[in-house]
């Protein structure tokens, strides 16, 4: 897909000829559409023609803008099926973490492990996980997690708790030791 489908340059078709009175025709149209023509525009015959065009189109354009075709209900399902196929097909060895598994190798995808650890944080009152990056050295995991917190929570206390919970989840849910947890509080939010 071409991300730059539009030519960036200014072709003659993109330029706006001024009205006979010298005014910028697009400005006159915008003022008319916003209902705020200035004194010159209200009295100038050249501007008046542009204003009449703008107002003549205004009603039907608003009706068109009010029409909202609903998306097909299965659209996202179809997309997600393709996304999941892509994820499976494109999974690389470096995306996998080795789990403690004495009876044979067991691996877990990095995004899935991150999801487990984020979920642990999301369960905590007033905390939400944002980024969760996991590195592995030997078997031990090193986790860098960013969180957002509700205004008013004791940040020192909850970040200590986040660390405790991530280490525990590494052991219990992933069966793999977490050797290091870096936590950054990146935002605060208020209860809606």
């Amino acid at each position, binding site marked *: 897909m071409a991300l730059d489908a539009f030519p960036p340059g200014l072709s003659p078709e993109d330029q706006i000829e001024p009205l006979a009175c010298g005014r910028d025709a697009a400005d006159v149209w915008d003022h008319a559409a916003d209902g705020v023509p200035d004194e010159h525009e209200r009295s100038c015959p050249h501007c008046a023609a542009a204003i009449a065009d703008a107002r003549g189109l205004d009603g039907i354009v608003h009706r068109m803008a009010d029409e909202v075709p609903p998306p097909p209900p299965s659209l996202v399902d179809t997309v997600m099926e393709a*996304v999941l196929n892509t994820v499976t097909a494109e999974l690389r060895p470096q995306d996998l973490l080795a789990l403690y598994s004495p009876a044979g190798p067991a691996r877990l995808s990095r995004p899935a492990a991150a999801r487990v650890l984020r979920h642990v944080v999301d369960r905590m009152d007033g905390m939400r996980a944002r980024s969760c990056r996991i590195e592995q050295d030997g078997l031990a995991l090193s986790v860098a997690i960013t969180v957002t917190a509700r205004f008013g929570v004791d940040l020192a206390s909850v970040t200590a708790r986040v660390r405790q919970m991530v280490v*525990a989840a590494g052991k219990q849910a992933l069966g793999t030791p977490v050797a290091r947890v*870096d936590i950054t509080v990146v935002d605060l939010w208020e209860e809606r």
Partner: protein
Amino acid sequence: MHAIRPTDDVAPRPAPQVRVPEPVVVPPERELDEVTLVVRAQEGDVRAFELLARRHQGVLFRVAVRVVGDPADAEDALQEALLDAWRRIAGFQGDSAFSTWMYRIVTNRCLDLLRRRRPVVPVDEIGEDRLVASGLAAPGSRGPEHAAEVDAGMAALRVALARLPDEQRVCWVLRELEGLGYTEIAQITGATGTAVRGRIHRARKELAEVMRSWR
């Protein structure tokens, strides 16, 4: 940054005393803020991406229908755009709003589709019948007799819109139907602000010319 000292012993040990408790408060993922969802999706969280797709699909489908003029084509364009978004989301830098980034991907997919479609269906042959058949020129739900003229005017506007050059139509749709500003439209289309103003003005003049007979 809060960091703990690496533990000395990283070998598996018996489960520690700290237990992961039963959930106390679990914020539904659907309530997560957009930045959090974007970051999670960038790190490969499929579920976060799905939530983003569901949040934005209504607006993006509407834009796609308005640009390509046909719901089935719009669905194809949006499906391709969402897959593009998944593949490219790691590169989203946050320089613009996520919605702006998504608009850009969708409008480019629409333009790709229109270029592929053009040899099959010349724009001049996109008539009212095709639009009615596609459901785009369906009469409004008001339905009374007096609405016939309004509906005919609307159908004429749709035909005139379909006949505009694609880049003009995209800019006009984003401005007049989506209500976006010139700066955001320039970000979406990658054109200069001056070019965007020019395209929108040219489209307005053309549509006004066609619609004079309906005033």
